[in-house]
């Protein structure tokens, strides 16, 4: 019988089928999720064929004439496209490194709070911004940071000089990160809080008996215990590096920061909806390129994680 690396017998198709029948109730519960994925994630993938066609509405995606790599040729000739790709990698790469840890830190800090009510109030406060749309957040930011807004008024009161926050190209990316943390850290920390809640309490009791400090417990028990969750979240975030943050950038964009805000998604939006003629084939070609880059990042992150001894997305590290 074939065996896997751990020496366990490899499952055969017959055996798998038998397992499914045995646990049919559990698999039945899973069915809606599977249908959802097929309908909304896998079937639309067929639409990617449009990247190699000229879309004709009356002929549909399948019937539209094949044009080969024409759209990709056009794409790779466009200097604005390469600018947008580099800009996106820069902004979202930075986002991954700088904003990703905040949710973990927040979860760890909240976990250390002992006053239940205060903890809940703080949790609600940090989670609430997640439910605001970027349209609202962008207008709040504009009002707070504009020349006659709260912050500049305070600076002026203290004898300082007006600071141009919203029209300064150099401050645009930092503002993107700050608002991202403000809006998303509370919500993302929920997953880590859940992971922390699942840690075996006996470890903490044993640490108490050994005289470990709170810092030691957090550093040596809590953090290592939630590392698999952190790994998965990081891999997923890496797989989103080309797509993250369109609505944020779109709403925070203004003429003064236009040069630094043209990410790949903004580029796709412009060539799709602001061009003199909509070319769905071309837009799909860009989207396809974007997805391939995302997939590449996801695979790289997953492989590195496994190499470092982690479980990776599918489990079963080397």
């Amino acid at each position, binding site marked *: 019988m074939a065996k896997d690396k751990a020496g366990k017998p490899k499952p055969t198709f017959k055996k798998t089928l038998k397992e499914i029948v045995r646990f049919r109730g559990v698999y039945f519960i899973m069915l809606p999720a599977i249908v959802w994925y097929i309908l909304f994630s896998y079937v639309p993938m067929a639409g990617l064929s449009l990247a190699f066609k000229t879309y004709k*509405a009356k002929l549909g995606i399948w019937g539209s004439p094949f044009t080969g790599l024409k759209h990709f040729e056009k794409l790779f000739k*466009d200097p604005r496209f390469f600018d947008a790709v580099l800009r996106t990698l820069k902004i979202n790469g930075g986002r991954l490194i700088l904003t990703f840890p905040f949710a973990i830190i927040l979860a760890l800090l909240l976990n250390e709070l002992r006053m239940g009510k205060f903890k809940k109030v703080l949790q609600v406060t940090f989670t609430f911004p997640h439910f605001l749309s970027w349209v609202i957040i962008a207008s709040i930011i504009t009002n707070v940071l504009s*020349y006659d807004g709260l912050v500049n008024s305070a600076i002026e009161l203290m004898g300082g000089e007006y600071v*141009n926050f919203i029209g300064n190209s150099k401050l645009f990316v930092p503002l993107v990160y700050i608002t991202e943390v403000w809006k998303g850290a509370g919500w993302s920390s929920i997953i880590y809080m859940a992971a922390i809640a699942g840690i075996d309490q006996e470890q903490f009791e044993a640490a108490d008996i050994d005289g470990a400090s709170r810092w030691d417990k957090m550093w040596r028990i809590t953090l290592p215990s939630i590392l698999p969750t952190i790994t998965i979240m990081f891999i997923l975030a890496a797989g989103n590096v080309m797509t993250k943050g369109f609505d944020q950038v779109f709403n925070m964009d203004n003429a*003064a920061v236009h040069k630094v805000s043209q990410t790949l998604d903004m580029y796709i939006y412009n060539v799709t909806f*602001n061009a*003199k*003629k909509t070319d769905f084939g071309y837009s799909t070609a860009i989207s396809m390129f974007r997805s391939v880059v995302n997939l590449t990042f996801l695979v790289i992150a997953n492989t590195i994680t496994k190499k470092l001894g982690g479980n990776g997305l599918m489990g079963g590290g080397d």
Partner: protein
Amino acid sequence: MKKLLKKSLALSLAMVMVLSLGACAKDTEESTGGGSTETKVETTAGGEETTPEPVAEEKDYSEHYTYSYASIQITESTDYNSPDDAMTQYWEQKYNFDWDIISISSDKWDSTVNTWAYAEDLPDVTIFDYKHPQMMDWVDQGLVFKFPKGWQERWPNVARVQEYGGLQLAFEDITGDTYFLARPNYANNLPCTPGINPTNMMVYIRKDWAEAVGIEIKDYYTIDEIMEYARRVKEQDPGHVGKDLVPMGLSSGNCYNVFVSTCSTYTSNNYYLYRDGSDFKWGLADPETLEGLKLWRQAFDEGLLNKEFYSYSGSEDVEDFYVRGVSGLMWYQGGARYQQDVANRMKDNLGLNYDDVVKQIFITANDGTYHSAPRGNFWGVIMFNPDIPIEKWERYMDMLDESCSEEGQILIRMGFEGVDWEMKDGEMVSLLEAGKDARSKYPSIYPVYHQLCMLSDDFVLINPNYPKEYRDLTIKMYKLKEELGKNGGCPPIDYDIYLYSSDATAALSFEYDKDFANIVVNKGDVETEWKAWLDSWAYLMDPVLAELKANIK
């Protein structure tokens, strides 16, 4: 005997039928119309035949229709089928229909209509902000309704109005068919030479502030003069506004209009290519464009603009003028109705008398030339769902035809005779309260009936609902613009260029105002930045210019 009687009767009937057919045939020969209109040939006392008048045939409107109608500018709170609105009731009862009005957000106008068209889900009637390559693609793919041949004879008023617009006829020259109706701004009342259609946008300045800072009141100023006005307003603050004062209340888009388009002709987002001998050029690459851009930077550096002018959204910049009263000038529509509108707003918001405190002006380049990019005499086109039932479409055309007639225009613009206006000494006199017009009395007018086919700009020049001095000023300003734009500043539209379509032109998409605002705000050298910007577009623009040279003679 009986047989003879029968034969005689049959013969007589046959003769009557033959004679009737002959008479009918004669009528048909004299008829100019087809379809559902007949023609009545009238003879004058002198025996001369007058122009045939089309007489509407009794039409069957017994089936009730609901027209889905999509446009921007829809007032969400308005019930366009309201039983209390006599205007909509007039049209709905006469043509037995009701509206299903669909509001399109103006910033998503293109994308919304695009999505509908490609999904083959256009409403019955859609107003589209015309883009030629896009329309050509829809036509090629059969995504918009194709008008039956000879529609012009059945709906002569609509056909006449299309002649004013020009676009639809030029399009028909290319495709041989009609696929949309352009909505003309002007018919008989435009004070300029036909073909010359300067923008109706104007600048409104504070007359009281200008007088207070020693600026002479005129109808037009050079760009340097208007900057001097703003400079003095900034220094002297004649309105005692304090730190909120904005000498020039202009958004990025309106800064672009005031500084760049004032200095350089071919700078509109819709029209930026032009002939230069046998060559073709891009107006944004002209040195005059750079001159305007430099002035924009100067105004920003001197603090004449809002510190964060690029963050103005919607109508915030004009509201600084007529709501908050903190701005020294604004860029706004110039017709009599808009003057009345600004007057009402200034009275309501600031308690100020418009005539005392505001002067409507326009700005020329420093050499005195008025610049306005070529404009077609239309704004937005009407297109139909390709699968609209023909009877339903015909009834809509009947309604459009009435709306384009003289009586229809008077009804839409003035309301009902005897109720909203009356004839006095051969002239129309408004019976509405001063400052009010038909559209303020009948909310359904705007924008549906108001822009059914013919736009309001033409009638507004003779509409007695608006003060005569506002109408006269509008006419005077148009004439002045044409006069000052004679040296190439105000050219007619060249449809060979405007309607040139290829993959290369379709790939062009610009946001001039944003790109230029970026150059202004970021402190690099303006000329270097402008050249770099031109270079960044060269890979798209060079093939277009070469194509135009090769294909347009």
